[in-house]
C-alpha cells in the first residue's frame, strides 16, 4: 500500500534533485535483536531523500517510525547497514573519526531535549566553545564568536558564564542552536527541536530558526511528529512510517491534500484549537479509522525514532 505513493515520490524527484546538498539513497539501518537468535530490528528499510542548499525538509512520523534514526545516520551516530549518504558530493556513510571531525564544520545538530543535550556542569560559554576548539580556533577569536552567537540567538552576553540549569527550556534550546551554528554549517539536523517546549516558546524558537535560515542559507533536516510545525517550517515534507517514506512533496500539498491514508490519519488526529472544527475532524477521523492503531498489545514501546 505504500509502494504506489512512494513510486510517485520517486517520479517527482526523478533521480534525485540535481543540486542536492545531502543525498540519501536506499538507506538501511538495523540493530541486532535482543537474544542470540532474534532477528535484527530493522529501523530504516531503504529511505531515499534529498535536501538542497538552504532548503528545509520536514520529516514527520510517529515514535518508532525511524525519523530520528535518519538524522543520526547522517551524523554518523547510527550504524549504516547499506545504502549511501552523500554530502556535498562526498560519500560519508562510512566516514572515519577524522573525516567526521572535519565534517562537523558543515554538518550540525540540534537535539530534542535541551535538558540533556547540554552538559549540566559546563557553562554555556564552555559548551559553545566546544565546536570552535574542536576546529582549533584561538581563545580570543572563540570568545568573540561566542558573543556573536549569543547575540544571534538573543541571549544576554553574560549567559556565557552561566550554567544550563539557570536557563529555561527555550533558552537552553537557543544555546543548543547557537552551538550548532558556531561553525557556520551548511546543514543542521533539527531533531524535534521544539517538542519539549511550551507553545509560545516553541513559536519563538521556530521563528529564530527560520530567520537564521533566511540569513545564512543553512539547510535543515527538520524531524518532528507535529504536522503543524512541519508545515510552518518546511519547504518540502516527507512522511515516514515503519522505516519507509510513504509520501513526499511540497509542504502545502502534503499537509493540505495528503495522498497517503497514513498522512491523512496523522493530520486528522492532531487536535486543533477550534471547538467546532475539532468536532468535525474528530468525526471525520472516527469515520475513516475504525480500529485504533495502538490496538495490538504486541507493539512494543520504542524510543522516538
Amino acid at each position: 500500500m505504500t509502494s504506489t505513493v512512494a513510486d510517485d515520490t520517486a517520479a517527482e524527484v526523478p533521480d534525485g534533485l540535481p543540486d542536492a546538498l545531502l543525498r540519501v539513497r536506499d538507506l538501511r539501518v538495523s540493530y541486532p535483536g535482543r537474544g542470540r537468535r532474534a532477528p535484527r530490528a530493522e529501523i530504516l528499510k531503504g529511505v531515499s531523500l534529498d535536501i538542497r542548499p538552504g532548503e528545509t525538509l520536514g520529516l514527520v512520523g510517529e515514535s518508532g517510525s525511524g525519523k530520528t534514526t535518519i538524522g543520526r545516520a547522517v551524523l554518523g551516530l547510527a550504524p549504516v547497514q547499506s545504502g549511501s549518504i552523500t554530502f556535498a558530493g562526498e560519500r560519508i556513510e562510512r566516514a572515519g573519526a577524522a573525516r567526521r571531525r572535519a565534517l562537523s564544520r558543515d554538518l550540525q545538530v540540534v537535539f530534542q531535549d535541551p535538558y540533556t543535550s547540554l552538559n549540566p556542569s559546563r557553562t554555556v560559554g564552555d559548551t559553545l566553545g566546544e565546536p570552535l576548539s574542536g576546529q582549533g580556533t584561538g581563545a580570543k577569536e572563540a570568545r568573540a564568536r561566542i558573543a556573536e552567537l549569543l547575540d544571534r540567538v538573543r541571549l544576554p552576553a553574560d549567559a556565557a558564564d552561566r550554567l544550563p540549569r539557570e536557563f529555561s527550556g527555550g533558552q537552553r534550546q537557543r544555546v543548543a542552536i547557537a552551538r550548532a551554528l558556531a561553525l557556520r554549517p551548511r546543514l543542521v539536523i533539527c531533531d524535534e527541536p521544539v517538542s519539549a517546549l511550551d507553545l509560545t516558546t516553541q513559536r519563538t524558537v521556530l521563528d529564530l530558526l527560520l530567520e537564521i535560515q533566511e540569513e545564512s542559507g543553512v539547510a535543515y533536516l527538520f524531524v518532528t511528529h507535529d504536522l503543524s510545525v512541519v508545515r510552518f517550517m518546511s519547504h518540502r515534507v516527507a512522511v515516514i512510517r515503519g522505516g519507509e517514506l510513504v509520501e513526499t512533496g511540497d509542504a502545502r500539498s502534503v499537509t493540505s491534500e495528503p495522498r497517503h491514508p497514513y498522512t491523512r490519519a496523522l493530520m486528522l488526529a492532531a487536535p486543533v484549537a477550534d471547538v467546532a472544527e475539532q468536532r468535525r475532524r474528530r468525526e471525520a477521523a472516527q469515520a475513516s479509522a475504525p480500529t485504533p492503531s495502538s490496538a495490538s498489545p504486541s507493539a512494543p514501546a520504542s524510543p522516538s525514532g
Partner: protein
Amino acid sequence: MSGNLPTGAAAPPRTAHEAEPEAGAGPGSVAPGSVRGGAVRRLLRNPLGAASAVVLLLLVVAVLLAPLLAPQAPDVSSLGDAFAGPDAAHPLGMDSAGRDILSRILYGGRNTLGGALIALAVALALGVPSGLYAGYYGGRFDSVAGWGVNLVMALPAMVVLLASRAILGPNVWVLMIVLGVLASPSFFRLVRGIVAGVRKELYVDAARVSGLSDTRIVVRHILVVVRGPVIIQVALVAGVAIGLQAGLEFLGVGSGSSATWGAMLNEAFQNIQRAPLLMLWPGLALGLTNGALVLLAGALRDVLEERGGGGPDGGRVAPRTKEKPSLPAAPVEAGARSPLLSVRGLTVVYGKPDGTRKQVVHGVDLDVRPGEIVGLVGESGSGKTQTAFSVLGILPEGGRIGTGSITVAGREVAGLPERAHRALRGGTVAYVPQEPMSNLDPAFTIGSQLVEPIRQVLGLSRKEAAARALDLLRLVEIPAPERTMRLYPHEISGGMAQRVLIAGAMSCDPELLIADEPTTALDVLVQAEILGLLRRLQEDRGLGVLLVTHNLGVVADLCDRVAVMSDGRIVETGTAEQIVHSPEHPYTRSLLGAVLDDAPAREPWQQRKARSTTV
C-alpha cells in the same frame, strides 16, 4: 592518565549563580553529578567534614614535618630509658627499646600514610583509566576487563598479601603495590558504571557532532562526572589501605625494621602487661586517621552528590502534612462551590534550602462539577500541576498547601493527614499521570499491578479482583485483555500503558479523575484514541475530569470549561469556546497566537541568489 585526576575537590571556586528555580520544576532539580565551585566551602560548612578535614590535615602536616617536630630520630635508642614516662624532652615517653614514642609516631606515620598513598596511586592508575576505557568504548575490552576484575575481587586480600610477602620479600612498599592492585577493581567498577551511563547522554553525542576527539570528550564531559564519586572512593580506600597495612605490621608481616604505626602496636602488644599506655599512641593515630577518613568520605558524599539535607524548612526535614494550613482568614466569595471539586484561595509554598519560602500558586479558585471536563491550561511553571497535586495531596518534597480550601465531594481535604488522603485517592479521586511508562513497575505484569491495588482497596479475593481487572481492561478498550494481563510493561506500547493506567484509575469507581498531561508523551494517533476514551468514560459514568494540559487542541477537543493559568494565578476562566474563540486576557491571546494550526504552509524552496555567510 591518573595525572588528570584531581586529588582534591578540584573545581575552582566560582561564584555560584543561584538558579532561579522555575516554579513548576520544584526544588531538587539540581543537575546530578555536577561538582560545582564552592564544593570545598560547603564541605567546610559541614561540621563533620570540617573537623575530619582539619584532623587529617594536621596529621599529614605533622608527619611531613617529622624531622622538624620530632625530638630525635626514630631509631635512636637508649636502653636505659626503656619504658620511661613522659617528660619535657619526650612528651609521650619512651618505648620498650628506649626510643622516643613521639618521634616514632611521626616518622612511622610517613611509612603508614606513604604506604596507603602508594596503594591508592596504584589502584587509581589501574582502575580509573581502564574503567574509563571499558565504559566509553565497551566491546571486547569491557568484557575481558570485567572478567579480570571479577577474578581479582574474588581473591581474599589478606591471603594474597601474606603470599606476596613470602614470594616478594618483606618490603612494605611492595606489599602496598599489591594492595593497590587488589583495590583497583573498586575504582574500575565505579568508573565504568558511571561512564557507561554518561556515554549515552545527548550532550556527549552533541560533542561528537561538534567534532571533538574522544580524548577531549572524555576530559571535558566524562571526567567531571567521575570526579566526585572517585574522590569519595579514594577516602574510603585510603582508610582500608591504612587499616590493612597496620594489620599486617601488627601481625609482624611488614618490613619489621622501620617504624610504622602497625609495628608500634605490635611492640606495645608484647609489653601490654608492663606498659599498657604504649598501645594508646599508635592506636590513637590509627583511629584518628581512619575515623577522619570515613567521616570525610561521608561528608564528601553529601557535598559532592548534593545529598545534604535542606535548610530549616527544607525537604525531608519537614514532613509535608505536619504544618496544617491556616484556613482562609477572610471567607472566600467566589461563587457557589461545586459539590465535586471546589478549590478556593489555594496557595502552594515551597521551602527552599536556604530557609526562605517560595510561593508558586497564589490563590487559585477552581471548580469541577460532576460530569464536567475542566481544562487547566498553562505553560510549564504556571503552577497548573502544583494545583492538581495539591488536590491529590501528592505535592513533591518541600511543597505544601499554604492557605486555602479544597473540598472534594463536600469534604475539606487541605491539611488532611496522609492516611486519609490516601483513602481519598483510592476512592473518590483518581489520577492519570503524564508518563505512562514510568508509572508502571517493570518488574511486575500488568495483571498483578492492577489486581493488587484492587484487592487492597476493595478487599476482594484474588479471583474477584482478577475478574474486575479484566472488566476494567475491557472498559478501556484493550483488545485481548486476558493476554495483556500477563504482559510486562516493556511489552506494551505507550498508548497501551496509558490505557492500563486509566483502567487502574477507574478501578475504584472514582467520581473525579485528575489527568496531568495524559497525552503529552504520546503520538498524535494514540493521543486521539486516549482523548476519545476519556470522553467516553466521562459520558458513560458521569465522571468529573480535571485535565491539566498545555495543548489548546486537546482543550478544544475535550473540555467543557477551561481555566487558564499563568504564574501561579488563574487569569481567565470560561467555556472552551469562549477561551478558544474569544479570549479576553492577553496571556490567553498570546497562547492562542502561538498555535500553528492556521499558519500558512511554507512556500516552496527557491534557489538563493546570493548567500551571505554571516550567521
